[in-house]
C-alpha cells in the first residue's frame, strides 16, 4: 500500500504471522472473573430467600405438590389477578399518554422546561406520599376534600370518590401522577436524539403527521418504548404501596392486587403466600424477558444529542398559532400536575386541628404548627436512619455495579455465561419483594438484625443491583468496541480510553446513584415487609401516621413535605443527566 504524506509517496507493507502456529490459549486475566464475586455475594442475599420461597411454594404437609397454588382459585385471589391485569392495561395506556405529552412538549419549546419540572416532580416523591396527597384531594367530606368540594359546589352533591368503583379513578390518577413525567422525559430524550438530517429528509419528502409518526418516529423509538413499557408494566404488576396508602382499608377487597393479596394472606402459613409470590414473580419475569428482546439491540445515544450540540432534531418548527393552541392544552395539564404537591404543601401549612376539619384552601389556622408537632426526636431519627440506609445502599450499588457491569461488558466472559448473567439480572431486577421478604425477615429476626440500617441497606443494595448492572452494562457497551479492545491490549492508550469511557458513562453512573438513593429514600415496601419494629425509616413513620388519616392530615402532609425535600431536590437537579443515563444506549 502507498501513503501520500506531505507530498511524499511512501510504500508500506504489513507484517504477516508466518511459520508454525503457536499452540496455547489467549491471555485471559482471571482478575475480572473475581470481580463478579462481590455481586454474587450481594445477590445471594436475594437468591437464597428466593430458593426458600420457591421450595415453600411446592411443599405440602404430605410432601411436594402443587396444592399451595389452589390459593389462586379463591375469589379474592382471582379478583387480585384480574385487577393486576387491569393495571397492566393502565400502564400501557400511560405509555401512550406519555408519548403524546412528549410530542406536545416539542410544540411548546418555551413551556417544556417548566412542564418537565412539574411532571417529573411526582417521580421523586414516595408512592405513599402521592397516595396521601390523593386521599386529601379526594376526601369524602366536602369541607376537606378538594374535588368533593368542587363537585358539590357545582352539582350540589358529590359521589364518594374513595368508594366502590370510583376509587379506581383515584388510584389510577395517583399512578399516572407518579409515572407520566418519567415516560414523557424518556420519550422526549428519544425524540431529540433523532438525527436532524433524517428529520429534514423526511420533511423534504413531504412525510408529515401520522405517516411520519408511524414510519419514522415509532420505529426509531422502539428501544426506548421497550424500556419505558417494561418499567411501567413491572411497576404495575408489583403495585402494592399505592393501593395500601391511597385506598381506605374498607375498600381493600375491591382494590386487591397480587402484591397486596400476598400481604393479606402472608399470615396464613408459608406455602400459600409463597405460591402467590411465585405467580407474581412469574408474571413479572415473563414481561421482562419479552421486553428483553427489545433491549437486546445494541443502541448508542448520539453523543451530545441531549445537549443539543450535535445538530439532532430539536424542537419542531411551529407557527405561533400552533404553539398557542398547544399551550392551551399543555398549560392546564401542568397546573393539574402541580396540584397534588400544592395541596400537600398547603395542608402542611395549616395547624393540625384546622387541617383535620377544613380544606387547605381555608385561611384559618395557617401556620407551622403541623411542622412543630411532627418535629420530635422520632422524625429526626428516622430522617437520619433513612439517609444512612440510602447512603449504604447507593455506595454498595455503585461500587459493585460498576465492577460487575465492567465484567459483563468487557470482562471477556464466555458468551453463553455473559448472556445467562444478563438474563438472570433482568429476571432479578423485576423480582417482587414478596418473593424474598418472608425468609429474609425470618432470618433477620433470628439473627437480631431486623431493624439494623446496615441490614436494610444491604437488602436494598441487593434489590437495586440488577437494574444498576443492566444500566451500566448498556452504557459501557455503547462505547466503541475498538476503543476498548485497544485499551485492553495496548496499555498505552488506557488513559485516553478511560477518559472517553468515563465521559460516555458518567450519566449512567449518575442515574444509577441518584435513582438508587431516591428509590431507597422513598421505599416503603422493603422496610415494611422485611424490617422489624427496630428500624424507623421515614415512610414507615408516615404509614403509622396515615393510619389515622382523617384526623392527622396536617402532620401527615408535613411529614410528607419534610420527607420529600431531599429526593425532590436531588432528582430535579440531576434529572437531565439521569435521563441521559437511562437512555444510554436506547436512543435511535
Amino acid at each position, binding site marked *: 500500500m502507498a501513503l501520500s504524506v506531505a507530498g*511524499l*509517496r*511512501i*510504500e508500506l507493507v504489513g507484517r504477516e504471522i508466518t511459520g508454525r502456529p503457536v499452540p496455547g*490459549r*489467549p491471555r485471559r486475566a482471571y482478575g475480572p472473573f473475581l470481580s463478579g464475586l462481590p455481586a454474587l455475594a450481594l445477590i445471594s442475599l436475594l437468591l437464597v430467600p428466593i430458593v426458600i420461597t420457591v421450595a415453600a411454594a411446592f411443599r405440602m404437609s404430605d410432601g411436594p405438590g402443587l396444592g399451595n397454588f389452589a390459593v389462586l382459585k379463591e375469589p379474592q385471589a382471582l379478583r387480585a389477578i384480574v385487577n393486576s391485569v387491569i393495571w397492566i392495561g393502565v400502564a400501557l395506556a400511560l405509555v401512550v399518554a406519555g408519548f403524546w405529552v412528549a410530542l406536545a412538549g416539542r410544540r411548546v419549546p418555551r413551556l417544556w422546561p417548566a412542564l418537565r419540572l412539574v411532571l417529573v416532580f411526582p417521580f421523586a416523591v414516595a408512592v405513599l406520599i402521592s397516595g396521601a396527597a390523593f386521599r386529601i384531594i379526594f376526601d369524602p367530606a366536602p369541607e376537606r376534600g378538594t374535588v368533593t368540594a368542587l363537585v358539590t359546589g357545582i352539582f350540589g352533591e358529590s359521589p364518594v370518590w374513595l368508594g366502590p368503583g370510583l376509587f379506581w379513578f383515584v388510584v389510577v390518577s395517583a399512578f399516572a401522577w407518579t409515572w407520566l413525567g418519567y415516560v414523557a422525559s424518556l420519550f422526549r430524550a428519544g425524540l431529540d436524539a433523532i438525527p436532524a438530517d433524517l428529520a429534514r429528509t423526511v420533511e423534504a419528502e413531504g412525510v408529515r403527521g401520522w405517516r411520519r409518526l408511524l414510519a419514522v418516529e415509532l420505529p426509531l423509538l422502539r428501544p426506548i418504548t421497550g424500556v419505558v413499557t417494561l418499567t411501567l408494566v413491572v411497576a404495575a404488576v408489583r403495585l402494592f404501596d399505592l393501593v395500601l396508602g391511597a385506598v381506605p382499608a374498607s375498600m381493600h377487597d375491591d382494590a386487591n392486587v397480587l402484591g397486596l393479596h400476598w400481604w393479606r394472606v402472608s399470615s396464613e402459613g408459608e406455602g400459600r403466600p409463597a405460591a402467590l409470590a411465585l405467580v407474581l414473580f412469574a408474571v413479572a419475569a415473563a414481561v421482562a424477558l419479552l421486553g428483553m428482546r427489545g433491549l437486546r439491540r445494541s443502541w448508542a445515544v448520539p453523543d451530545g444529542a441531549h445537549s443539543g450540540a450535535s445538530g439532532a432534531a430539536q424542537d419542531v418548527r411551529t407557527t405561533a398559532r400552533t404553539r398557542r393552541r398547544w399551550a392551551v392544552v399543555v398549560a392546564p395539564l401542568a397546573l393539574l400536575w402541580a396540584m397534588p404537591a400544592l395541596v400537600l404543601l398547603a395542608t402542611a401549612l395549616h395547624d393540625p386541628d384546622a387541617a383535620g376539619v377544613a380544606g387547605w384552601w381555608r385561611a384559618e389556622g395557617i401556620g407551622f404548627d403541623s411542622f412543630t408537632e411532627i418535629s420530635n426526636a422520632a422524625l429526626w431519627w428516622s430522617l437520619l436512619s433513612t439517609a444512612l440506609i440510602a447512603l449504604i445502599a447507593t455506595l454498595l450499588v455503585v461500587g459493585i455495579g460498576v465492577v460487575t457491569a465492567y465484567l459483563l461488558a468487557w470482562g471477556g466472559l464466555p458468551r453463553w455465561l455473559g448472556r445467562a448473567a444478563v438474563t438472570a439480572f433482568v429476571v432479578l431486577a423485576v423480582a417482587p419483594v414478596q418473593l424474598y421478604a418472608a425468609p429474609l425477615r425470618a432470618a433477620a429476626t433470628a439473627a437480631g438484625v431486623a431493624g439494623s440500617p446496615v441490614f436494610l441497606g444491604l437488602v436494598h443494595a441487593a434489590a437495586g443491583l440488577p437494574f444498576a448492572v443492566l444500566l451500566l452494562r448498556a452504557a459501557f457497551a455503547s462505547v466503541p468496541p475498538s476503543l476498548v*479492545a485497544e485499551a485492553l491490549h*495496548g496499555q498505552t*492508550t488506557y488513559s485516553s480510553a478511560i477518559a472517553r469511557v468515563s465521559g460516555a458513562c458518567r450519566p449512567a453512573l449518575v442515574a444509577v446513584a441518584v435513582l438508587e438513593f431516591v428509590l431507597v429514600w422513598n421505599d416503603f415496601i422493603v422496610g415494611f415487609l422485611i424490617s422489624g419494629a427496630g428500624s424507623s425509616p421515614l415512610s414507615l413513620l408516615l404509614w403509622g401516621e396515615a393510619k389515622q388519616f382523617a384526623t392527622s392530615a396536617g402532620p401527615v402532609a408535613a411529614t410528607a413535605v419534610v420527607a420529600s425535600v431531599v429526593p425532590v431536590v436531588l432528582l430535579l437537579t440531576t434529572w437531565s443527566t439521569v435521563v441521559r443515563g437511562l437512555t444510554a444506549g436506547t436512543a435511535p
Partner: protein
Amino acid sequence: MASAQSEQQQLRRDIFKVSGALVLSVLGELLADGLTVPGTVRTAVTAALVVLVLILVTPTVRRLWKLRRPPAQDEARARLRSHAERAQHWLEALGSSGNGLAAAEWFEQEEKALRKLLDMTEPTADSVDDLARIADALDTWYVRTRRGRELLTTSERLSSIANLVGRTDLQELANLRTATANRLLGELAAAAGLLDDEPVPPPPGQANDAMRTRRLLERGLLHLALADRCRTDDDRADEARTARDRLNEAGMAIPRADLAADIALHINLALTYLYESALYESAPDAASEHARLAMTHAETAHDSSAQAHASELFGVAATLKGNHDEARSWWQEAERRYAEVGEREAQARCLQHLGALAVAAGEQREATELLTRSARLRGGAAGHEVLEHYLGKAASADRDETTRPRRAQRRRWCAWPRRPV
C-alpha cells in the same frame, strides 16, 4: 541491594532444602516402619513405593524413548527429518539479530532444494509433519522476500499434502497462506474468497486460537489493501476502520506465548493508524504508540527485522508530523537493520523512502544514488511503481540541474551592467 536479595534467596533455598530433607527422612522412616508391619499396611507401603519409583523413572524412560534413533532402513525419512530440522532451525534464525544474515543466505542457497523436497516427497502420515515444517520455512522466506507467486505454489502444495493425509489443520493453514499469496499478488477478490468461509469443522488441536489470530490478521491486511484501491476517501476510511476492527479482534485471540503474533499485530495496527492519520491529516499518536509496543516486543524477542519494521513506521509518523530530519534518521536506522538481517526487499523500500525525501529536499544527486541502490537490490525498478515514479522525478530534476548553471550564467551576463546601480 541486589546482594541482599540474592542472600535472601539463598537463605530461602537453604531452608527449603533442609525442610525437604527432613520431610523425606520422616517419610523414609514411616515407609521403613510400614514394611515391618505385616498385612495390609505392608501391601499399601509396597504399592506406594512402586508408584514412587514409577513416577521417578517414567520421565527418563520417555526421554530415552524419544531420543532413540530412527530405523536405519528408513533413510529417506531420516533425510527428510534432517532437512526439516535444519529448515526449522534457520527459520527461527531468520530476522534475528544474531544469525539473521546467515539465515537469509542459507535460504537463498537451499530454497530450491527445499522446494524440490516438498514437491517430490510422497506424503504419508509419518512424514507429513516434516513436510509441513519445510513448508513453514518456505512460507516465512517467501513472505519476507514478498514473493507471492512462489508462496502461492508452496501453499497449494501444502494444501494437496493436507488433503492426501486428511489433516484439516494443515488444510486451514494452507488456505490462509494462499490468501496471503493472493493478496501479495494483488488478487484481492480471490484472497477475500478464501478468508470468507469459516473453517468447518474447526481444526482439531491446540492451535485453534493461533489460526483464528492469523485469519483475523490476514483479513485486516486485506481490508488495508482494499482501502488502497478505493476511489473515495470515505470508502478508504470505511475499509481502514474495518481493518482496525479485525486487527483488534485478532489481538484478543493471540495465544499467550505467541510473541511474533504480538509484534505483527502492533505493527499492523500502527500501519492502520498511519493510514487513517494520513487520510484525516491528524496526529499519528496512536500509530506511534503501537509502533513503540512493537519495538519493545521485538527487542524482547531479539527480532531485528521487526525492530527495523517499527523504525520504518516511526519514520512515516515523523513525516506525518512534518519532521523530515527525524524521518530520515529513522529510515536510515531501519535500512541498516534490514541490511543486517539480509532483508533486501525491505532494505530497498527504506532506500526508496530516503530517496523520496532527498527528491523533496532538492538533493538530486543523493536521491538518484539512493533510488538506484534501491532498484539494484530489487533487481530493477520494473513493477515498483513508486520507485519508478521517484527515479523519473530525480532524473528530470537532474537534467534541470545540469541546464540551470548555463541559464544562471546567462542571467548574470545580462545583469552585469545593472550591478553598480
